């Protein structure tokens, strides 16, 4: 009996995967078809303009959206939404995606990776990497917790010192990258090892020499602000996530700083000749990235009330970079949107959740994400606006 059940489960998984793959192919094909039709239509009307130079074709608004950095991930998100709706309709009893419990899990879990990805994405648009965020994610709440619970500080200064440490780490990363001309990949790799050591140092039990976890028990009002339940399956983390996304959008698109970030990432020399202080921009972007990681760490550890030093090994840095890349951020900077980053990070969480719901082994999540990374980046490259890329 058990055997047949497993068989049917496997069959279901395989079938659903096949359907997903077919949907992918269909919708992306469809998207390209629409684009081509529009192009044809445009050429009929404005043949004089397009014949002059094929490079400066006026794109319609629809076309710009279709070719924008976040279009592919948006299509993917819509497909996922349709699939979940269909599955809920077909298997209302076994497919528990739209249940209050599951949505609560999602709204507590996803914001953390979203907030972190927003920071990493901002930095990647600026043309740099940060591999040290897993260390910041662990260290800063750790400092807050030890100041609050072990040294008996007041809440406000202990939270503040955590964030100050994060900003200092970000500044150090940026300083090493911009002044000492060390590639940020290496600078933050060094910082990652360094922070691993620092976390181990702080967490070591002086008697046994074994690193142990620490508990964070803030007052209740603070818990409610950071991770409290607002109503139903709607948690404070979600609000914070939306707040960060809006803030990042405003910063990147409506503030001079965002302009500088895009310019620095796109072409550093040109930006410098335009009078932009690229070093300053990069250092600020590093600090934003560290701050976001520290905030995500504080939120998650407030919810769990526990910080374990093992978090530094969790591979969060690569996950965040992967989420950004899925969301259409160009790896070498200068291109990307906040919407794409948020959707990419959400995809990471939702796909994992979906695979848990259809009872696939947990490893399928990573396998699936690996395929999605490669697939989406190929698509982003093929269908992107920027045809003349830097020499890769």
């Amino acid at each position: 009996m058990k055997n047949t059940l497993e068989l049917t489960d496997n069959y279901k998984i395989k079938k659903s995967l096949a359907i997903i793959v077919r949907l992918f192919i269909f919708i992306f094909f469809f998207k390209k078809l629409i684009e081509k039709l529009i192009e044809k239509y445009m050429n009929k009307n404005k043949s004089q303009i397009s014949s002059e130079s094929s490079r400066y074709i006026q794109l319609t608004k629809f076309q710009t959206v279709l070719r924008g950095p976040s279009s592919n991930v948006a299509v993917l998100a819509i497909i996922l939404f349709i699939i979940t709706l269909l599955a809920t309709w077909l298997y209302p009893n076994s497919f528990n995606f739209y249940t209050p419990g599951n949505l609560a899990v999602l709204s507590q879990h996803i914001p953390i990776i979203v907030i972190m990805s927003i920071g990493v994405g901002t930095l990647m648009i600026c043309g740099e990497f940060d591999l040290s965020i897993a260390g910041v994610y662990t260290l800063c709440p750790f400092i807050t917790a030890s100041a609050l619970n072990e040294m008996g500080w007041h809440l406000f200064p202990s939270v503040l010192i955590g964030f100050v440490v994060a900003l200092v780490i970000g500044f150090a990363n940026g300083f090493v990258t911009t002044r000492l001309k060390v590639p940020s990949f290496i600078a933050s790799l060094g910082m990652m090892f360094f922070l691993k050591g620092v976390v181990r140092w702080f967490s070591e039990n002086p008697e046994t020499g074994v690193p142990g976890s620490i508990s964070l028990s803030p007052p209740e009002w603070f818990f409610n602000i950071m991770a409290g339940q607002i109503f139903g399956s709607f948690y404070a983390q979600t609000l914070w996530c939306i707040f960060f996304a809006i803030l990042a959008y405003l910063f990147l698109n409506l503030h001079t700083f965002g302009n500088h970030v895009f310019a620095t990432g796109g072409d550093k020399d040109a930006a410098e000749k335009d009078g932009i202080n690229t070093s300053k921009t990069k250092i600020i972007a590093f600090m934003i990235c560290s701050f976001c990681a520290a905030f995500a760490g504080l939120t998650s550890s407030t919810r769990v009330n526990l910080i374990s030093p093992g978090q530094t090994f969790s591979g969060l840095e690569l996950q965040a970079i992967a989420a950004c890349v899925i969301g259409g951020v160009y790896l070498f900077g200068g291109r990307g949107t906040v919407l794409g980053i948020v959707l990419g990070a959400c995809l990471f969480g939702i796909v994992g959740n979906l695979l848990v719901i259809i009872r696939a082994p947990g490893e399928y999540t990573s396998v699936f994400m690996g395929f999605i990374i490669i697939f989406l980046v190929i698509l982003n490259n093929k269908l992107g606006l920027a045809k003349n890329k830097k020499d890769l």
Partner: protein
Amino acid sequence: MNDSLNNLASTRYVLKGPLDRFRAHPAGNVVLVFLLVLLSCSVVSLIYPDNFRFISKPNLILLQRAIPTLGIMSLGVGLLMIAGEFDLSVGAVFGLSAYIMAMVYTSGMPILLGVVAALVVGIIVGLINGWITTSFGIPSFITTLGTLFIIRSGGRLVSDNVPIIFQVPDWFKTLMTGRMFGYLQMQFVWFIIIAIITWVILNRHTLGNHFFAVGGSKVSSLQAGINVKKTKIFAFVICSICAVIAGIMSVIRVGVVNTDAKPLMELETVAACVIGGVALTGGRGSIIGVAVGAIMFHLVKDIIILAKFPAYYLDLFIGLAIVFGVTLNQIAKKKY
């Protein structure tokens, strides 16, 4: 442009003495630091033979056992980085290949067939990495990040998180992990052999010339008639093969395989290469530098353990050493 070329020429060929010329080599700095560290360690251990046992048989053998795993992987990654690409999937290949070898061997096949199977898997991974990177024109960082996710969890799916315990035949064990002349560990001998092979490929074969050309400037090497795609795919395959060899070597002595590779392995190899003077953007580097970089990684660990510092100094120092080493290399690059 002309001006800068002239400047380059003038600063490049008026090197004052042998030391300057030595430091102008990509691996010059790290070799210099390495020799200094080695010398000072030897002196200290001769002065305090009881407290700092650097020159003692157990320590030397321990070092020889520890270095090759990272070292062999770094050699492959170094070649690939000289050709201008990254490979983040080596850590996953490292774990998976050993598991596949053990799986084939425990199912009753001869051990050599297991090794061949592991190598075939490694070559396939390298081909896929290279094919996707070159034919779709996406950065290798992303390709191999994707394959890292796929292989690491694919390995866990294959293994069901159950470790395999096995005993390889004695001749194979002595061949891979035995001891020669009392002091020489076979792993280290293999490391040196592979270093020599990669050196020959890089410096005495057309392929190596192509690696440098492709990593230095893709466009000009295309114009010079080099098949860039083929060269890069070759580099990916060599890199994966090195990871497979390291993976097999690391499990034979212990006889237990788990697909849970050590985390951060792929980043450690990149760090070792960059300490050894390989440019992150490609086109500059040397095998000696990569080998010494990997050795330095373990030397620092060894010194910290021998000097009885607390364990957390390990990561602190490695982090500082990475940044310090690369800063030194950057200064050397600017100066010479």
